[in-house]
């Protein structure tokens, strides 16, 4: 069956010790053989895209497979109850992410009955494609290679290019991970059933199942399934074992010779790539009507018996690791493989759709990195890079925070596979530098967007204020003229009107707001005082000393008022933004930013005044200021982290379905 097919190659790559044998000796432990944990914590946001809306509330009874989170728009995927039981709470809980951020989760206490909701299989052959996609979205099917991109979105052929190849990714190139290997060995026919559904949706001419040649059993099983299927256009192909052969772009390149550039859809090149686990999930969702509530997870590393388990989402990681034999010197969990995995913030974070592997780390398994040395430009990283980047140049410019240059060197083509860090003789954590640069660049772009928006708003407001003043003045003038014409007696008003119409035009920025705005009044007053003060200073500090204390007090009060207003506003906005929670929702960023900018302006003004008076009140004002900036910083950091996470996930999803 493995037809003699010309394989292509990608540059670079590395061959780390695979460490796969230990966990692939024994079969997968099926769901039925695993006890239920005392509590499930199911995060609502487990995929790239919109955050699902909770459909349940505390105290409610749920059935196994019942939808507890509805897809938020089309670019999202539903979330389901992993077992029957009672919802204890719907509250933020720690995410399975290095950042240690929290995420709205549904906490379920199982009743032990494992009572399924009525399953809804779909006759996909007689359903229109959009109907099948909707079914998949509501079944919560996402890419299980690690990128968790909603599958129904990827199951749409490009508009202008005929779908040539559907690539099924069974390469599983990351060390330690064997969940796809075991899935293919044990359930090849079901994987193939899912593949056929995907092929039907995409209308692909051929299906290429790529498996790294260090998994002979999986290759044999898939080939046998293909043979039984008797369709020559579905082929299982062994690809050379070289990390990251399981990267979507790398596998597409190896099997078809096509290089999909960064930021472009592979369907526009007539190819699409899915993980074997996703194929299995699609089969379960459509032909059995079972939503995605579990997956194969490799438990490896520092455990008694490394092994694969079928694990329900929401199961605490330490619960499942204990099944495999907890070792006392375990110091962390790593979700994913050792090349691209993430350190978990705690042992009890829940297993989610992205959890393909949990490695119990210990100093023995992952020695602490040797001290970092300077880069000697040896170029090892460039030779190892599967994307043909010049990692040492990007490192150099990242260090210098020269982000323009980093982008010139194609930073955003980096898939963060870790090959460069792996080979670096100077032990430089290169990928960390790129992650840093990426988040910095995103943050700056957002800042710039927000500033642009603020500028447009500001200008619009000025214009409006100007117009209002002008209209008012015109009206006043007209009235005066009318009254003059009527009475034919000059009044003091007639002289004042043009003057009041003229001054706002001269200084639109300061007097632009409506008169009842207390803050504006304060600012104006402060400005006037500052001016007076400056003049006094110009006169050789001739200002009487007696006047000073009064001024001091005043300005301190003002400052406090300004800071308070800004602080309150910033807080309100921040809270609003936080409730929007994950910040893939870009709208929260500008408002947040806006508040911050206002606060900053207020602070700057206050500072200027303080500097002008140059007295002890500065010291008084300072604590408040400091507190504010610390809070702000925290807010900024939080927002940036959350956004970075979302973006990274999105980028990873489009770029790479890492197996």
């Amino acid at each position, binding site marked *: 069956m493995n037809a003699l097919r010309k394989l292509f190659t990608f540059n670079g790559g590395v061959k780390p010790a695979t460490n796969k044998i230990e966990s692939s000796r024994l079969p997968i432990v099926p769901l039925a053989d695993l006890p239920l944990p005392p509590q499930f914590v199911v995060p609502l946001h487990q995929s790239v895209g919109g955050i699902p809306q909770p459909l349940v509330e505390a105290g409610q009874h749920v059935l196994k497979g019942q939808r507890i989170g509805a897809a938020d728009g089309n670019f999202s995927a539903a979330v389901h109850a992993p077992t029957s039981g009672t919802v204890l709470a719907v509250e933020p809980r720690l995410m399975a992410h290095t950042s240690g951020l929290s995420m709205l989760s549904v906490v379920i206490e199982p009743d032990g009955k494992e009572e399924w909701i009525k399953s809804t299989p779909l006759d996909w052959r007689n359903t229109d494609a959009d109907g099948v996609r909707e079914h998949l979205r509501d079944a919560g099917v996402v890419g299980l290679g690690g990128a968790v991109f909603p599958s129904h979105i990827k199951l749409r052929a490009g508009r202008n290019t005929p779908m040539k190849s559907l690539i099924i990714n069974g390469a599983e190139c990351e060390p330690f991970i064997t969940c796809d290997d075991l899935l293919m060995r044990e359930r090849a026919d079901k994987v193939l059933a899912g593949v056929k559904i995907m092929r039907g949706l995409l209308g692909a001419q051929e299906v290429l199942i790529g498996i790294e040649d260090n998994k002979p059993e999986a290759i044999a099983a898939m080939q046998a399934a293909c043979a039984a299927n008797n369709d020559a256009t579905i082929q299982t192909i062994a690809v050379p074992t070289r990390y990251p052969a399981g990267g979507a772009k790398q596998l597409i390149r190896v099997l078809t010779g096509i290089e999909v550039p960064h930021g472009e859809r592979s369907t526009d090149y007539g190819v699409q790539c899915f993980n074997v686990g996703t194929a299995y999930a699609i089969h379960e969702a459509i032909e059995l009507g079972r939503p995605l509530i579990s997956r194969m997870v490799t438990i490896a590393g520092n455990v008694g018996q490394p092994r694969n388990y079928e694990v329900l989402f929401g199961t605490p990681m330490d619960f499942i690791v204990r099944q495999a034999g907890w070792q006392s010197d375990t110091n962390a969990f790593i979700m994913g493989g*050792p090349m691209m995995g993430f*350190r978990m913030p705690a042992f009890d974070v829940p297993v989610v759709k992205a959890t393909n592997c949990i490695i119990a780390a210990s100093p023995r398994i992952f020695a602490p990195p040797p001290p970092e040395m300077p880069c000697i430009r040896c170029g090892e990283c460039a030779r190892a890079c599967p994307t043909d980047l010049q990692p040492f140049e990007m490192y150099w410019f990242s260090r210098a925070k020269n982000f323009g240059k980093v982008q010139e060197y194609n930073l955003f083509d980096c898939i963060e596979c870790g090959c460069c860090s792996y080979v670096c003789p*100077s032990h430089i954590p290169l990928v960390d530098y790129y992650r840093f640069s990426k988040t910095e660049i995103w943050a700056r772009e957002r800042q710039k967007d927000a500033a642009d928006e603020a500028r447009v708003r500001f200008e619009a407001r000025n214009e409006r204020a100007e117009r209002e003043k002008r209209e008012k003045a015109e009206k006043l003038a007209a009235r005066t003229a009318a009254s003059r014409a009527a009475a034919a007696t000059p009044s003091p008003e007639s002289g004042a009107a043009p003057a009041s119409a003229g001054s706002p035009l001269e200084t639109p920025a300061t007097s632009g707001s409506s008169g009842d705005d207390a803050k504006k009044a304060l600012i104006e007053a402060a400005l006037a005082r500052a001016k007076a003060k400056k003049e006094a200073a110009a006169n050789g500090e001739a200002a009487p000393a007696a006047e000073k204390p009064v001024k001091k007090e005043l300005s301190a009060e003002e400052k406090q008022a300004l800071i308070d207003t800004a602080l309150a506003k910033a807080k309100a906005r921040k809270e609003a933004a936080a409730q929007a929670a994950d910040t893939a929702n870009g709208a929260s960023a500008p408002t947040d930013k806006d508040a911050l900018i206002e606060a900053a302006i207020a602070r700057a003004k206050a500072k200027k005044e303080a500097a002008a008076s140059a007295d002890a009140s500065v010291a008084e004002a300072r604590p408040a200021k400091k507190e504010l900036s610390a809070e702000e910083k925290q807010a900024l950091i939080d927002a940036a982290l959350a956004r970075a996470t979302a973006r990274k996930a999105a980028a990873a999803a489009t770029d790479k379905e890492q197996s």
Partner: protein
Amino acid sequence: MINNSPYVRAQASVTRVMLKVLAALVPAIAVYVWQFGPAILVKLVLATATALVCESVMLKLRGKPQALFLTDLSAIVTAWLIALAFPPLAPWWVVVTGTALAIVVAKHLYGGLGQNPFNPAMVAYCVMIVAFPSLMSQWPGDLNIQAAALAEHAQVFPNGPAMTLDAITSATPLDALRTGLRAAGATVASVSSDSATFGSVAGRGWEWIALAYLVGGLWLVQQKIITWHIPAGFIVGLGIISGAFWLVDSAHYASPLLHLAAGGSMLGAFFILTDPVSASTTPRGKLIYAAGAALIVYLIRVFGAYPDGVAFATLLMNIVVPLIDMKTQPPVFGHKQ
């Protein structure tokens, strides 16, 4: 707490890289000793000691960890290259001063390991040849220097093997050629008939050392410490340039083989131009860099005033490395065509 991914690393370190470079120099040192006696060993030890002392002092002054950087062996590589590149007759203090200059000025004043835009050993060579042209370029001939060298050899090597006059009168063939060809009616053949200077291919004795550099260098390529681009670019470049002149007028221009086997060609091709810190890093850039160096080497050798041009060529090409690198970025995955 543990770091971010990747959590596994290949068995690679700067120390390992430098150790392999040192190992690759050993065959050449062995041939050197075989051909010219053990005096080179004294120079190697002197240069190594000087380099380590200077490195240690500079690290202390710069507040850098001593153990980490002294064990990276980079200073010793510089020291060995200086000892091997300097003329065998150069007095001991020239080697010491040169090494100190390389480590203190060319390396640490520029920021230490990985930061030097110029090859430190070649900076030392150039400064010393400009400052002490007679000591650095007059290999045989001047009897005073010979006598001084012999006396010094006896000083540092009181009980060692006696240095024979024969060993130190072997001129570099490049020097002999250039001076010899100035005489009326002289040809390459007539000049190179002097068997005290010329061996079967190039300089007597030196041709064997060049061969040893080639062997060590090829091993470095095989070990993936260096890539083939720079040695190939240099050797092919020098071969083409010298071959062109030789084909036009073989009476007055030496053969490519002589140019490749003579002077610092092989040392330069595999050990000096390949210094990763100061060399070009892109595949195409390396070829341009090496070919440019080959051209400069040839021009200096044939039309210049110095006996060899590898040091100057290296420094001149070091200057343009940033430009070469910028203009020769390889296409990124998916951006080809």
